[in-house]
């Protein structure tokens, strides 16, 4: 049995509050509901004497939001994939701090249902994130729970954005893409994703409840945007052991699922 083959996998479903703002589409913030799913795996690696873990976090959300007087709506969606490594500082047997970096890929859209030639705005950005995590295994009256807090902050990246008054017709039909990919860092993309979760064993299963505070902001090409999400999520955690089959030998038919 090898430590790097134990995998924690969690699939979560959530709903919460969304606030979407994009001055390319409207000077107003739109508020409404966010629906989200996420899937995360985490396991140890053999790096640095087995002190480094790898996290693979995928999430997708869609929101339906309304302007202040509620006579117009937007749809917005984003797919986000984080993949990276954390060094684990084991402070005690039950408490550890993790610090590392993540590749943070994002793609999505905001669609304003009333606008004419600027009905939608694309979201596409890639970042290198600084990431920190605290994991605490504790017991409340002999009931074991796991608390986790994680924060990911984009430090450096690139982002697609139309120029201030540029139409997507000019970018994609006429092919003028000058200046539509910009360098980003903390000064023009002060963003953070934070997650607080608690794992509770229920029977033979482990249920995870989490609160995700997703704050994506940008100030690029004089276009201001933000997408705030406060999302409550619930799902199951599975602890798996990876079996590698380098030779590709088929498993005995008696134990194969398919």
């Amino acid at each position, binding site marked *: 049995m090898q430590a790097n083959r134990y995998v924690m996998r969690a699939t979560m479903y959530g709903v919460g509050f969304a606030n979407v703002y994009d001055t390319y589409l409207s000077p107003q913030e739109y508020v409404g509901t966010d629906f989200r799913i996420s899937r995360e795996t985490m396991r140890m690696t053999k790096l640095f004497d087995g002190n480094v873990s790898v996290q693979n976090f995928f999430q997708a959300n869609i929101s339906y939001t309304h302007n202040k007087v509620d006579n117009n709506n937007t749809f917005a969606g984003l797919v986000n994939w984080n993949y990276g490594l954390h060094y684990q500082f084991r402070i005690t047997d039950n408490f550890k701090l993790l610090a590392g970096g993540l590749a943070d890929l994002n793609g999505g859209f905001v669609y304003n249902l009333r606008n004419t030639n*600027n009905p939608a705005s694309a979201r596409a950005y890639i970042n290198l994130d600084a990431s920190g995590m605290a994991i605490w295994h504790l017991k409340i009256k002999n009931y074991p729970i796991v608390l986790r807090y994680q924060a990911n902050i984009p430090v450096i990246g690139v982002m697609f954005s139309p*120029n201030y008054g540029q139409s997507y017709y*000019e970018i994609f*039909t006429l092919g003028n893409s000058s200046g539509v990919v910009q360098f980003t860092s903390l000064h023009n993309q002060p963003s953070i994703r934070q997650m607080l979760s608690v794992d509770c064993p229920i029977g033979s299963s482990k249920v995870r409840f989490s609160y995700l505070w997703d704050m994506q902001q940008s100030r690029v090409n*004089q276009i201001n945007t933000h997408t705030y999400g406060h999302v409550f999520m619930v799902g199951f955690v599975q602890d798996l052991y990876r079996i590698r089959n380098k030779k590709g030998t088929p498993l005995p038919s008696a134990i194969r699922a398919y």
Partner: protein
Amino acid sequence: MINNRDRKESKKGRAIRILTLLIPIILLLFIASSCIREDEYTNNPQGNFDALWTIIDEKYCFLEYKQINWDSIHTVYQKRLTADMSNYDLFEVLSDMLATLKDGHVNLYSAANQARYWDWFEDYPRNFNESIVEDYLGTDYRIAGGAKYKILDDNVGYIYYELFSNGIGNGNLDEILQHMAICNGIIIDVRNNGGGNLSNSSTFAARFTNQKTLTGYIRHKTGKGHNDFSDPVAIYLEPSNSIRWQKKVVVLTNRHSYSATNDFVNSMRYLPQVTILGDKTGGGSGMPFSSELPNGWSVRFSASPHFDAEMNQIEFGIDPDIKVDMLSQDEDKGIDTMIEAARTLLKN
């Protein structure tokens, strides 16, 4: 016993842990103080007035070209505001303010009304009579996409395209041009065509050129200043790789040929076998964007200007090659002066 090396490593480990904690805290504090939020305007007459004035001030693309003193407009129309004015009165003040832009692409939309500036065609001869066009088409005309078409009895093809929002695909154009292959020439009537999609304009025009042709330029605003514009980007008309018309073409225009239609006429006039006949077009060369006010009223405005191939503005229209107006005595007899002038031109 703890030796020096262990002590050093323990200090190093502690330093790393402190740093590990401190860096996220510093970053968190930085992010927390860097919220990017909306500029809030109160939903009252003054707030809505200021929001609209600011949208135009920062995003409208013709303030300098039209030599409009937008600050002075603020002063003039501000005086007409009162704190307790009705929505109808506010709408009237805002509409009047927008009318100073003299732009058919500028509108304000409330649930009750739509503010518009239509002087660019309402103040000029109509030069179009729909019932006469229907007489020319008869009842046996064909419809392909947004185009109605027929071969007139003197072997001239006639295509009436009433709105560039109505799609016209390559399949439609193949059928139309194949049907008209026997004709001496064709008339493309875009009178009263108020515009629509630029892609329909270029798809249609691509059937009349054999070579890549420079037809104009586009710019966009790069910032809030009235003169913050990008460098011009050339717009080329690429020849279609399907059926291309090689004989003469007359494009019929009037003051209501606007926006994407203005763009179509601008492309067509650079092609050697094409003649523009009729009245000056209505213009409308600024690609419109939308925005909104705190009370939910939607506003549309020109955001990105198009120019012709010599970098001239075409916001106020394009002159025809041959100026022809509808004669009232012809109109009384059910004759379309402009269609007849085009037929004569194509037969010579």
